[in-house]
């Protein structure tokens, strides 16, 4: 697993639950309390150990914890750059959804060795989509649900999202776009400093 992903999970735990919880998780998972280096590649088992330990210490199921991670990733000020990069995907939430299949390629443009979930969006009916997520790490669909819910708020769109099931490494999410202009949403300017 790429260090950027491991470090995101680490900062999510530290910022949401505090450094002492992170220390407990790190000790239990056998990783350094110093945490992960963003530009290193780690064995998938290390990520699995940290997640398992966090679930145990927090007493939270895998799906719920990963969904919170997804929310954190696109809403917290420390990960503002990620929200901005996602907003480049489209001017509206519908366009953004259509850009999701480019996500792994976009990620690789920035960091060539970063492997992100392969996403495939299909129209079910007008305003109704099925998103499938394929990744080596089970639970990526839950991260997507949290991230998409927050991105919908960001665009000011009203959506219903559901993790409808997983089949090995493939997970399915249903997305119902009820109102693409429900609220004002958050500002997005192409220029980063504005």
């Amino acid at each position, binding site marked *: 697993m790429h260090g950027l992903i491991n470090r995101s999970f680490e900062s999510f735990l530290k910022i949401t639950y505090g450094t002492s919880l992170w220390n407990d998780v790190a000790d239990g998972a056998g990783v350094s309390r110093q945490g992960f280096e963003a530009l290193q590649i780690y064995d998938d088992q290390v990520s699995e150990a940290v997640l398992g330990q966090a679930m145990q210490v927090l007493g939270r199921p895998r799906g719920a914890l990963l969904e919170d991670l997804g929310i954190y990733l696109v809403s917290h000020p420390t990960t503002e*750059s990620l929200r901005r990069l996602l907003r480049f995907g489209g001017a509206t939430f519908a366009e953004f959804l259509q850009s999701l299949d480019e996500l792994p390629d976009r990620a690789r443009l920035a960091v060539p060795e970063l492997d992100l979930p392969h996403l495939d969006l299909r129209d079910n009916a007008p305003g109704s989509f099925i998103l499938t997520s394929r990744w080596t790490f089970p639970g990526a669909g839950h991260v997507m649900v949290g991230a998409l819910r927050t991105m919908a708020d960001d665009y000011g769109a009203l959506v219903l999202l559901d993790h409808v099931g997983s089949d090995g490494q493939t997970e399915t999410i249903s997305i119902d776009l009820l109102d693409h202009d429900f609220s004002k949403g958050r500002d997005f300017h192409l220029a980063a400093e504005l």
Partner: protein
Amino acid sequence: MSGVGGFSISNEALDCLMPMHVRVSPTGHILHAGPTLRKLRPDGGFAGARLLEMFQLRNPRSVQSISELRGCAGRRIKLQFRVPPKTGFKGALVLSEADGSLLLNLSFGISLVDAIREYDLHAADFAATDMSVELLYLIEAKSAAMDESRKLNRHLQAAKVAAEEQAFTDTLTGLKNRRAMAHILERYLAQGRAFGLMQLDLDFFKEVNDRLGHAAGDHVLQKAAEIMVAHTRTDTTLIRAGGDEFVLIFPDVTSAETLLAIAERLIATLEEPIPFGAATCKISGSIGISTVPENCRADASQLLDQVDQALYASKRAGRGCATFYTDALPIPAMPPAGRDPAPRPGV
């Protein structure tokens, strides 16, 4: 409707495909400008204006009139607004065969980053085929990745500093450092081992540094270290204690003659000119010596203080010489070469 190469196309269709286009009449007046261009000049100014009064050609620079501009048909051109902000554009120009009007399509080119800072532009302001938004994405993604890379470098630098602090080796000369010296002295004293102790300061080192720079200074320090290695046995511990100060520890050597002979050889060799590029560095060495008997009860700082006193006596005696520490007073044991024997320091 305007005919472009036999394909009839409306202004609205052009606005969709090329939101930064300009249609210009045969007389050089702007007939229509695409929505993104209009956004750059919210107070208007396009319709009816002369193209060349609004824009200045940057390439080819010689173009001053609309007829000269017509000669650029089919070519790539560069231009910029005449009124600030003087945003730059690149684009291409084609002529309509039907009525002699011109169609100019523009893009920000490399001015893109300035343009998005200057104007309130959104993804929808760029043509669907335009890579500008992808380029902005890439610029931002690369900056984020560079930030991470910088953070990693900072971590590595801090780790390197920490490792150096814990190391026993002086990275410039390869000799042991002050930390190592403390350990070795403590160990010998704890073992009750006899040893000879020598402190060597390079003379005129500061002049080399000042005259020829730090690179020359570093070179001299490395040469001095090589000389010490060449003139001592492998069981001698050679320490760069800091700057141009060296400490040498000779296990089981308590003979004054032996240590003096080594000191003389060291000073003589240090005084040989050291070439550095086209320049020549001339240094010497001042040495203080003491010996530590078996089962000595003194502590390391006392011993270092003693050789330091002996060294100071050598310096007072005119440098380039060695002095033994004695309880009473330090006396230069080896007079500076070519000088009168140093007077005994006054008591």
